[in-house]
C-alpha cells in the first residue's frame, strides 16, 4: 500500500513524475499549473533520483527539450496551461511525426486568448483533434481527482512508450488547484542507460559498432513514403481504440437519461445524479477517461436504453460532437455547460437536464 498524502492536483503530478522514474521535466511558468515546477524545484529530484528539472525560456523551448530527451529514449515530460499548450503544438506534432514518447500535462484555463486563469474544459478540440498540424492524434487522459492526477502520470508514460506517441493529461484549473487525499504509488527506479538502450533501440544514444546510426526525424519528402508513415500512425491509433479505451459508468444500469462528462465536470455531474435520483429520476453518469481514444463503442451500447444524453462540459460544447458520432445520432444529445472559467453547479446541471428532457 502506497503512501497517503494530502496534496494539490498539481503537486500530485510532480510527485508522480519523480515516483514514476521520470528522467526529465521541462516547463515554463503559467497559472494555474506553476506548482508542478515549483514542487519539483523544491523536492530537487536531481539530487535523489537524478531526474533533470529545468525552467525553459518558453513553452516552445520546453517542448523541444522534451523532443530532444524523448529522442534519447528518456522519460520526459512538460506541463502548461492553455496559452502555453498552444505554443507547444508545433513540437507536439513533431513528437507524433517522429514517433516519440512524452507526457504533456494541460491544466486548462478559460480562453480564447489570454482568457482567464479560472478552470475550463475548452481545450478539448485542441487535445483530441490534433491541435498541431498534420494527421496525428495524442492519447488523451482526463483525470477527475487528485488521485488520478498522480496515477495518470504513470499510466501516461506507459502509454507513451507502448505506442511511441505523445500522451496528454487533460486536466483543468480546478483539479490542478484542489487538495485531496491521494495514495501515492511506490517509487519506481529510473532506468539505467543500458536498460534504456535495450528498451529503445531506436534512441539516439551514440552509434556503436553493433548497429546503424539512429536518426530521429519527421521528414519524409517523398509523399508516398509520407502516406505510408501516416498509415502506420493510423494503425497505432486504431490499436489504442481496441486496447486502451478507459471510461467509468456511475449508476448507468437502470438509467433512462445520461450525463456524459469528464474531469471536473464529471465530479459535478455525480452530485447532479444524486439530486435527480433523490427525486426519482433515473439518471446515470458516463465518464470518458480517455478522450482519445473515445469510448464510442461503450456509449453506443448504452444508448439503446437511454432517452437522452446531456453532454456537460465547461465549454460551449466540444465533446458533444464525439458523443453524437458515438451514438450515431440515434438518441437526442444536448449540451449544457458554463464556460470562460465559470464552473456550473450540480443544481444548474440538474435544472438543465429537467428543462431539456423533462419539460422543465
Amino acid at each position, binding site marked *: 500500500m502506497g503512501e497517503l498524502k494530502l496534496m494539490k492536483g498539481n503537486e500530485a503530478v510532480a510527485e508522480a513524475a519523480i515516483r514514476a522514474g521520470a*528522467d*526529465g521535466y*521541462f516547463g515554463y511558468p503559467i497559472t494555474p499549473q506553476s506548482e508542478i515546477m515549483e514542487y519539483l524545484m523544491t523536492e530537487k529530484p536531481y539530487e535523489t533520483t537524478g531526474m*533533470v528539472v*529545468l525552467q*525553459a*525560456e*518558453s513553452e*516552445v*523551448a*520546453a517542448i*523541444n*527539450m*522534451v*523532443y*530532444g*530527451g524523448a*529522442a*534519447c529514449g*528518456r522519460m*520526459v515530460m512538460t506541463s502548461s496551461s492553455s496559452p502555453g499548450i498552444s505554443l507547444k503544438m*508545433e*513540437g507536439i506534432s*513533431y513528437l507524433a511525426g*517522429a514517433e516519440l514518447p512524452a507526457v504533456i500535462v494541460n491544466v486548462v484555463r478559460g480562453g480564447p486568448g489570454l482568457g482567464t486563469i479560472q478552470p475550463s474544459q475548452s481545450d478539448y478540440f485542441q487535445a483530441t483533434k490534433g491541435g498541431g498540424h498534420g494527421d496525428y492524434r495524442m492519447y488523451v487522459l482526463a483525470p477527475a481527482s487528485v488521485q488520478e492526477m498522480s496515477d495518470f502520470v504513470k499510466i501516461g508514460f506507459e502509454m507513451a512508450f507502448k505506442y511511441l506517441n505523445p500522451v496528454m493529461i487533460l486536466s483543468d484549473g480546478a483539479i490542478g488547484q484542489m487538495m485531496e487525499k491521494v495514495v501515492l504509488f511506490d517509487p519506481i527506479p529510473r532506468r539505467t*542507460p543500458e536498460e534504456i538502450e535495450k528498451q529503445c533501440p531506436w534512441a*539516439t*544514444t*551514440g*552509434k*556503436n*559498432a553493433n548497429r546503424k*546510426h*539512429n*536518426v*530521429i*526525424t*519527421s*521528414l519524409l519528402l517523398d509523399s508516398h513514403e509520407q502516406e505510408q508513415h501516416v498509415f502506420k500512425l493510423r494503425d497505432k491509433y486504431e490499436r489504442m481504440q481496441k486496447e486502451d479505451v478507459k471510461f467509468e459508468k456511475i449508476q448507468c444500469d437502470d438509467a433512462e437519461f445520461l450525463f456524459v462528462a469528464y474531469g471536473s465536470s464529471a465530479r459535478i455531474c455525480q452530485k447532479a445524479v444524486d439530486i435527480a435520483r433523490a427525486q426519482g429520476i433515473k439518471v446515470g453518469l458516463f465518464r470518458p477517461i480517455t478522450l482519445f481514444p473515445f469510448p464510442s463503442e461503450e456509449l453506443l451500447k448504452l444508448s439503446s436504453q437511454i432517452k437522452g444524453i446531456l453532454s456537460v462540459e465547461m465549454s460551449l460544447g466540444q465533446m458533444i460532437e464525439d458523443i453524437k458520432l458515438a451514438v450515431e445520432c440515434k438518441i437526442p444529445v444536448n449540451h449544457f455547460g458554463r464556460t470562460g472559467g465559470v464552473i456550473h453547479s450540480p443544481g444548474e446541471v440538474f435544472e438543465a437536464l429537467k428543462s431539456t428532457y423533462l419539460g422543465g
Partner: protein
Amino acid sequence: MDIKDIIKPENIVYQKTKLFTEKPLSYCPGCGHGTAHRMLLEVLEEMNIQDKTVGIAPVGCSVLAYEFLDIDMQQAAHGRAPAVATAVKRLMPDKFVFTYQGDGDLAAIGTAETIHACNRGENFTMIFINNGIYGMTGGQMAPTTLPGMRASTCPFGRDTEIMGNPLKITELLAQLPGVYYVTRQAVHTPNAVRKTKKALRIAFENQKLKKGISFVEIVSNCNSGWKMTPNQSNKWMEDNMFPFYPLGDIKVPQLEKV
C-alpha cells in the same frame, strides 16, 4: 596504364572520411555545407567519439545532414536545436552534442533558444553556417543578409530603413558568460578549411572539459541563393561578407589551447 593500376592504396592522397555515409551529398555543387560537414566528421573521427556523439540539425538546407553523417542524429524543428540539444546533453552528460544551424534558424526564428542555451552555458558545440540567405526555401532575406544585398524577399537589395540591419549574433553571443569560445571561420580555401577544422577541434575539446558553449560560425556561400557560380560566390563572399563578418577568433579562453 589502366585506371585500376592508379587506384591503389599507396596512391591514395585523399579519400572519403569514414564517418560519411554512402549517400551522395544533396547540396548544390560548390556549396560550403559539404566541406563544413567533412571538417566536422574529421574532428569526430580523430577524437574517436563517433559512438559518444549526438548531432542535431534543424530545418534548413542541412536538415538532411542525418543522411550523410554516420552518427546518431536528431532532426529538429526550425530554430529549436539549442533547446533540443540542451535536453540531450543534460540527460546524457557524458555524450558529445552539437547543433548545426543556418542563419535563419539560429538568428531569426530560433533567437530565443540560441541566446538562452548560450546564457545558461549549456555544455555543447554550436556550428553556425552563415550564408546570409535562406537557402532551403529559395533565397529569401535572412537576419544576416547584408545591407543592399539582394534576396527574393528584398529583390532591390536589403533596405535597412525598412528591413532593419543585419544581426551580428555571434558578437552578441560572445558577451554572455555562459559562452566559452567563439570564433568565425570559412571553408572556401584550403587554408580556411584547416583553420575551421582546428576551431572545431577546440570546440569539441572544450566540451570534453565541460566549459560551456563553444560557438563556431562558418561564413559560407550559397551559390544557388546568391545566383552565382561557385567561384563567383566565393569571390563575392570575400569581397562583401568578410568585411562585415570578419574572420578570426572573437572570444578565446585565456588558458586552455589545444
